[in-house]
């Protein structure tokens, strides 16, 4: 399952606290998802590709339709 590979599964410690490191990891994971970095990583993983200008171009072309149709809220 993809979710296992996400570096974002912050957990509470035995006292019910979230460590700063985990909180930071969670924030970074949220930002990576919002800014499509995770989507690009999944694209690379799926095609077993190395990051390159060519790979990113293909990724952008693949996601262009979805990105263009995504409404921005008011």
């Amino acid at each position, binding site marked *: *399952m*993809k*979710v*296992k590979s*996400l570096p*974002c*599964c*912050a957990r509470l410690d035995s006292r019910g606290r979230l460590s700063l490191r985990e909180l930071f990891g*969670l924030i970074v*994971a*949220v*930002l*990576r*998802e*919002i*800014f*499509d*970095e*995770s*989507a*690009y*990583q*999944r*694209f*690379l*993983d*799926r095609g077993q590709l190395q*990051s*390159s*200008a060519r*790979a*990113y*171009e293909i*990724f*952008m072309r*693949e*996601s*262009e*339709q*979805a*990105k*263009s*149709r*995504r*409404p*921005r*809220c*008011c």
Partner: protein
Amino acid sequence: MPRILRVLFWIAVSVLGALALATIALHRGEQINALWLVVAAVATYAVGYRFYSSFISAKVLALDPLRATPAERLDNGRDFVPTNKWVVFGHHFAAIAGPGPLVGPVLAAQFGYLPGTLWIIAGAVLGGCVQDFVILLFSVRRDGKSLTEMAKSEIGRVGGVVAYVAVLSIIVILLGATALIVVNALKSSPWGTFTIAMTMPIAVLMGVYLRRIRPGKVLETSVLGFVLVLAAIFGGQWVSETPSWAAIFTLTAPTLAILIIVYGFAASSLPVWLLLAPRDYLSTFVKLGTISLLAVGIVALRPSLHMPPLTRFADGSGPVFAGTIFPFAFITIACGAVSGFHSLISSGTTPKLIRREPETRMVGYGGMMAESMVAIMAMIAASVLQPGVYFAVNSPAGIVGQAPEAAATTIRSWGFPVTAAQMASLAHAVGEQTLYNRTGGAPAFAVGMAQIFSNTLGGQAVMALWYHFAIMFEALFILTIIDAGTRVGRFMLQDALGHIWKPLGRTSWYPSILFTSAVIVAAWGNFLWQGIKDPLGGINSLWPLFGICNQLLATVALCVATAIIVKMGRVRYVLVSLVPLCWLVAVTFTASWHKVLDPNPRIGFLAHARQLAAAGANPRLIFNDRLDAAVTGVLVVMVAMILIESGFECMRVISGSKSAATKEAPFVMTSLAMEEQA
């Protein structure tokens, strides 16, 4: 935590919330601290989330942690990806947060802070959060289907068509209204215009950097873009102080409107990677940062609200927009409390990322609570201003006059002290030539935000920088919506036209791209042009029209939700969606009636058209009013049709003449629960 402590904790939160609500509602004649609004909102949201959303989860929707979501069943690593709930929450919030909750509350502050604040809090907890939550869950149970598809399959063909027309209309009117806000914020402002102009080459540079130099490093590129935008803000100060450069960037409203129209057309036709995507990243980056910064600023500074709880304009004679509190405060607040547009996000990207059904509660209900909190912050930013300053900035020249002294005298006659010298000093402090007649809400929000920020960090010396930072934030935000919205509208039009002539439906065929882009740009450009030519400031017509469209879309979403709840055999809980639905029907239909037929020319489109005709005004202005009336009328009739159709559908199910079958995807057991236990 032991049960008794939990009970005591929630009693304490409820009492604190009630105390804060009583404070903001009952204090008269003295200023209150902005933190009371924050406490009232946070405590109410906490209680609403803990108890009301929990009730909806358990009793109405019966969220099932064992049922596999489409993200799990259809996982393709692209659209359908099971994702951590906090990540989905952030993604969802970034998608639903738009300029509406910032602008609407600022405009509604003309009634005083009380009506808007109460509606933002109550409307969100009982209406907006419920809508977002149930639509998200229903979409999750239907393989991520869109609102339009659900309306078609659960209500009928009319439902689908109405949802489609409502979405297209709202996009067009939203783009016209928000473009007008940008024009009003940038006219005669070389500093602001230069900063915003610079965001375009910065976005292109980001696009090239992202594609050629550091592929996929979006966060890094966004930080770089943000640094360049900050440099552009500093550069803007130099431009505004250099006469030869200032002359180039001092533009009139019509010139700015033409430039924005040309920009919208170009952005819709250019490749996504070159302009749309990098601008979108930059805008999101600035948006999240600025909202967080504003929250910190409010909590750190704890400003006092200068705006009274209720102003004399509750009677409907407001200068910012005409109309009484009911229904116009609700139409104006729109997205801060209930937003029909959110139902598109809740039935768009988000349902395809949800890992487990129970997570829809936090993402749907909780996401809207966060959005509503942004609206509370906007209300605070408007209410920290001296009321005289607020009305001087937000009142159109047609109401208060062009000359500074005349405008100040008019505003003083309303009981709100302000002088021409005070306004000139404020304009100088924020680096503008004038702050009069800047309708649209954005400049007033920027002044309020600059006041909060400059008192927190940097002092009065940097107020101009904070003001232009706020203007840049809003304009960047809105221009991103313009290019993305034009493109979305173009795709919707291409989809529809493809049924008439196939080549027009091909999204990569350039003649079709140019034709449909031109149609969409012409449609919103017409509303923008109408706004800048309107002697009443444009916002008086366009923002209520936008609010009506938005709330009508929410009506459609709640119709779909109600029909599905009935079909699920949970008629006894139907009030959860039926009450907000009835409220929205009352608000939108009353507002529509006023906007079309009210005899007051400042409210009714047709009365205004008659007044203009009697005065021998430009036929184009008369046509605009009639067009606004026609658009409102058509939308109301279409929503009435969907109401009737869904009403009949529900009655057939309740009476037993039709079986209560919903169109949910079949149950599949999740494997995630076992993986988590392991």
